[in-house]
């Protein structure tokens, strides 16, 4: 057994003094790490027949980390998959993220999207900024609206005003307008004009459609400095607003 060098009295006193000075600070630091969190919940992407359904999923971990750092939400750092053909899988997640549901063709898929929402789930659709994925944002909005009109006829897609609570419920979103990520960082005035679109069933918001490319932002596509954080802030606001609305 190896003997350590005997400690001098001076060294001992220094250690004692350092301990006395720093122990309260360490305790406070430890307390800060012990965050108070509620029920655990997972973030899932809706798997559809679209070839792009998991595009930008590599950036989701960054988003989860941001949510955990900025809120007390007990969200899993791992992103998950919910197949639109499996209702039990979908119902594990109260909020489903989708690149677009218009590609869902099967009757089962239609029914599952509607049933998830009717049970209290929230559907978040975000259009990728890439022109190869979303050639026309107005057409994309219409496709989503058409899909919902068939699958969920009781729902209406409405444009949210800039004064809506979703722009200030956690982070203050400048000008009440979502941050947009533009393809190759080239400004598109027509796209920039779009705000957020709520999927409303009566007075409650059952889902939300954005044309902003929020996922492109938090996945660090080419964009102005700070766009990634702005997109994640908008997402946090959407997430919290979804939680605080009646399901």
């Amino acid at each position, binding site marked *: 057994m190896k003997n350590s060098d005997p400690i001098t009295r001076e060294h001992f006193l220094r250690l004692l003094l350092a301990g006395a000075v720093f122990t309260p600070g360490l305790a406070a630091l430890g307390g800060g790490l012990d965050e108070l969190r509620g029920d655990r919940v997972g973030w899932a992407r809706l798997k559809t027949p679209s070839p792009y359904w998991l595009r930008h999923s590599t950036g989701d*971990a960054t988003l989860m980390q941001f949510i955990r750092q900025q809120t007390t939400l007990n969200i899993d*750092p791992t992103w*998950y998959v919910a197949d639109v053909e499996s209702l039990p899988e979908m119902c594990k997640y109260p909020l489903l993220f989708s690149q677009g549901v218009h590609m869902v063709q099967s009757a089962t898929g239609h029914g599952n999207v509607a*049933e998830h929402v009717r049970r209290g*789930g929230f559907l978040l659709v975000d259009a990728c900024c890439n022109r190869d994925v979303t050639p026309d944002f107005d057409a994309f909005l219409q496709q989503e609206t058409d899909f919902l009109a068939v699958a969920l006829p009781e729902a209406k897609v409405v444009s949210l005003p800039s004064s809506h609570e979703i722009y200030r419920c956690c982070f203050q979103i400048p000008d009440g307008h979502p941050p947009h990520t533009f393809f190759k960082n080239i400004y598109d005035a027509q796209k920039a004009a779009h705000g957020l679109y709520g999927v409303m069933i009566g007075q409650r918001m059952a889902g939300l459609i954005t044309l902003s490319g929020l996922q492109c932002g938090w996945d660090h596509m080419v964009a102005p400095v700070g766009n990634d954080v702005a997109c994640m802030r908008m997402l946090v606001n959407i997430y919290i*607003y979804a939680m605080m609305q*009646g399901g």
Partner: protein
Amino acid sequence: MTPPFEWQFGGWLRGFPPVTAWGIVAAAAVAGLVLVVWLYGRTLRQLPPAARAALTLFRAAIVLLLLLCLANPSRVEKEKPPAAGSKKLAVIVDRSASMSIPDYRRATRLAGAVRIWKEHEGEASAAFSEIKYYRFATELAPAANLDDAVETAKPGPETHLYSALRQALDAGPDAVVCLTDGLDTTGAARDELAGEALRRNVPLYFVASINRLQPSRSGDAVNIREIKAPGTVLRQVQFSASAVFEVGSPRDSQLPVELWSGDTKLASTNLPVRAGENILPWSVPVTAPDPGMMSLEFRAGKNPPQAAACTVEVADHKTVDVLYYQGTLQWGYRFLRSALASDPGFRLTSILNPALDVKISVETPDQPTLPDLPDDVKALKPFQIVVMAHVFANQLTARQQAALVEYVQGGGAVVFISPDTQATASFAGSALEQMLPVVFAPSSLAEDGENNLNGFRLLAVPGQPGLPVASRSQSLPGLKPFALPAGATHSAVSALFEKPGETLPRFVNNARVRAVKPGAEVLAVSAPAVGGEPQVLLARQQFGNGYAVAMMTDLLWRWKMSLPSSSHALEKFWQQLLLSLAPSSGEGLRLIKLTESPSIHQPVVLQIAGSAAEALPTVEAVSPSRDRQPLTLQPATNGESAWTASFTPDAAGDWEVRAIGSGKKSARLSFPVPVTSQSAEMMNLPPDVGGMRELAEATGGAMIEDAPVFQPRENSAAAPGLQHVRPLWNSAWLLAGLLGLYATELIVRRRFKLL
């Protein structure tokens, strides 16, 4: 004047004579000082003389202060015994009517008591420097002397014995002598007076007034003074109906009481009655039937029983204002809000803990904006139910918890919801936990480990980037069902879980409880695991006038997501749970008889109480011959929604008063009207000698009979005074000085390289 004091050794030195104790301390001091001088005379390094002297002084001072602490000196304050010449005696004479009723020998109780007291008066004069006389019936009044107390004024109609004794104590006597038959006609509690006399260290002496008066043969005089029930309740909700009975009885007995609803007997019991006048409250939990008018009739006594009735409106719906407070972000709120939104009777106001930095307004239009959980009960009053979901103890101030406790005591309901044992354990010993029906289990290391295992994967590199898509399915604990506790047949439980097995809620996580408090009602437990005891999931208890509920699971949102959208099980569960807690609204129409002992040709005064929002009720008196007499109502002076009415019975027999309010609400009160008043004062009740003896002995006094009871004043001079011993050494300043000296010495030692 400052009491004299001296000081003494404390601790183990106190057992020695002072000289020995001083010797021990001095020897220890000398030994310590010699050791200090010797140690500093041979230091490791050479020291300048001044430094050596300073260090020696520091160490010597420390040794001396330590010895001072070990000697444990104490200050002794001695209270001088009261001077022998300043003792005062109060003699109070019962001048109620029962004291002046002669027996067949023409002897009254008052005369008998005075005769006994006169035999002891000289003895009392020797023991007390001053004797003051009083008389009482309903009020205590001073008298110049015994004759004045006995002969002046007419006998009073009642005996407020305990009240008079309490007033006599307020005059600050050293002892009280009471000439009485011991029959308090107010129904006041004897124990409270005994406690008051003990606190003041004043012994009570009684001179029993006895004659040969025969008790009245009329038996117990029973009256239902008032009954109380809510004006409106929700169907299947449990509420309280109560009555107050007045009973005058010549002997200890029992009063049979019953509560009926139509032809159904809801409850019955025998209330203990002691000789004399009794005020007996009785409260019964009642479960509301289906919507409609529910009649409640209290009956008391026998042959024939007295009865008083009222009606309660059972409603299907009413407005329930709910305040929801959430400590952490979680999805349960979305589903709870939706469940309540399907019933417009629920109005929800939500508050998120301000530390979450989330600003969502969910407010009822006519409710004030609340930035945080109020710490004033007034701000909670507009709500009938407060839901506390996923709250941690460090999020609530003591004032907020106190406001919640006061809110529930005043009739509100609090639902505490948490599935996290770590969170609930942090409430151990808090005011909130004291109000709740369960005692939270401590958070154990094993459970924390289990939580970590089943719970979140907080990875240093988040997201598991290498995980294949096919494996990206969140692994969740299975949904576990609620179960009814063994033998649960209570209607409140069945109201929540109407179809057991089909609609029992399911949950993912639950917090553990250590125990259920006595009197609490367990509404649901976990389905028993293999080899494990079922855990309490839902319990409630009445706390003050309100309810406190503990729900130890999540908010059941995963259960809702597992059910078909056509299912309304979650909505039903939340709505039924909250409706079962919603306090009953308003008070029903009530008739209160203010005249304690009616008799013919004497006015009977009634009070009619009801909701202020309702119309003036119509009231009539029905005579024994069924003649009806409408009564005129006058606004009462003691309430906004109360009126008084009176009538004068012109015939003996059973009279009935009926009140009919709006919406078919009614109240009925029947009572006998004899030819002469049936108050306990005039029932020739036997003296309560046992009660007087009990009270006297409880306060250090005695019954005054033949033997002398008072000691001459000379003996009292030898009584030792009180001593107050207060340690002198355990002050923070002394300990701080000791530490300061030691720290200074260490610094100086370091300065001179001795460390």
